[in-house]
């Protein structure tokens, strides 16, 4: 899914009525040829809209909501669940939180969470809202093959339309997936400042330790796999290169 050209141009005219397309591109950093091509094809990428919104001081989340396909974003914002908030804390920050919690030290600067998204934010978000058969429900609703959905999670990306379908299938607010995929920031999505930190503080020490160990385990597996792939590649190169 992407945004129809006509609606996009109407929106662009609304926020920057007297600006040429060339200037819009210059301010927003969107490549001119890219935008031109998207307009000709009639499909403007959400990322273009987000970059342009930011350049013109418009909240990209609200801008998206003006489009028919993103009608779900309109109305009273649904606050993120605690699990969603914690899923958007990076693994390293979780580990730092464990240290901070179990060995409190005076004078250590308080933990400041890294901005969203983090390296495994998409998979962690889906795991956080998955009641058990979410992948199948998303697959039924959108027609995406489960292995393609998994490939997105592994690559830590999630197209906006799939993000919306996933949150709808899980019955959570529509913003989580857009934050997890990095399309919009947590503040643009209307998450209260410090919400992730507060959710983290509400975890018991045991919950925090278990969560951190799960994440560390997953990270270890990913790293191991990457190392094995690298060994494999180097072995081929050593012998045949």
């Amino acid at each position: 899914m992407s945004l129809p050209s006509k609606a996009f141009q109407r929106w662009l005219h609304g926020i920057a009525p007297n600006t040429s397309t060339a200037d819009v591109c210059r301010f927003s950093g969107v490549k001119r040829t890219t935008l031109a091509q998207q307009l000709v094809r009639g499909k403007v990428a959400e990322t273009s809209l987000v970059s342009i919104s930011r350049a013109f001081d418009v909240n990209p989340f609200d801008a998206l909501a003006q489009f028919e396909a993103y009608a779900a974003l309109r109305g009273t914002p649904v606050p993120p669940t605690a699990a969603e908030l914690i899923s958007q804390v990076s693994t390293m920050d979780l580990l730092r939180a464990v240290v901070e919690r179990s060995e409190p030290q005076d004078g250590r600067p308080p933990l400041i969470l890294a901005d969203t998204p983090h390296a495994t934010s998409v998979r962690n978000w889906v795991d956080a809202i998955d009641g058990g058969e979410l992948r199948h429900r998303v697959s039924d609703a959108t027609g995406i093959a489960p292995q393609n959905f998994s490939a997105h999670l592994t690559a830590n990306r999630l197209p906006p339309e799939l993000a919306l379908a996933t949150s709808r299938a899980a019955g959570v607010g529509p913003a989580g997936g857009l934050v997890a995929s990095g399309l919009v920031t947590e503040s643009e999505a209307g998450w209260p400042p410090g919400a992730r930190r507060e959710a983290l503080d509400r975890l018991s020490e045991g919950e925090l330790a278990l969560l951190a160990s799960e994440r560390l385990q997953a990270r270890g597996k990913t790293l191991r796999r990457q190392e094995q792939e690298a060994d494999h590649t180097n072995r081929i190169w050593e012998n045949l290169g």
Partner: protein
Amino acid sequence: MIAVLQWTTLSVCLALTALRIPSAIRGENRMMLVLFALISLDILLSIEGPYLLIDAWLGNVNVCNLLLRFLLYGTLLLMGIKVAKAFASPGGERAIRGPVGLAVLGATAVLTASFFFSMDTRDSTVGLNDLDPGPAVDIYAALGRFYPGYVAACLVPGMWRSVRRSGPALLRAASATLLLGLGLLIVSQVFPLIPAAFAWLRPLINYSAALASALGLGGIWLSKVIARRASRAVMSTQ
């Protein structure tokens, strides 16, 4: 048409051999230079013009063809060992250089030589095409296809596993090309079943196998060079 394919294959192999010379001088993986040179020589000896010329020096009794068979066996042995090691296939490596593999090679070589000397091989003819047809010529030809097919069959499972893994795109594409070449060597076992009307399929398969193997090996090397350059570029900007 086939002549174009033959000379293209030869040029590609010669170019790859030449490209390997500087790294061989630096002492990197000299066996790969030997391997590419061997493949080039195999191709050269299988083309009519060079074959007739060289066979004339050797006495016009098609000894050049026997030489070509032995060179091919050597090429496949070397390539088999290298590829099996590279693609982490201990089973494949054992099947090629272990007792079984060497026994297969020895038996093929002895049988090849005995069938050759049992025939009346006077008058140079490339591929022994104009010799009196008979079971001896057919068996001799089948032996020449058998050992390369055997080595290819030992390598294919390990390579197939490897091609399906993730890795640099160029490396995977090159490995797949090499795999295609090996697959064609296996396919060449069914040459006797190809009807005479489709006889042109045989050289097509043979040279495509050689070309794909050479390009695959060259591509693997190229993917390494590109990766090293990229990592050096990253290092120098840091």
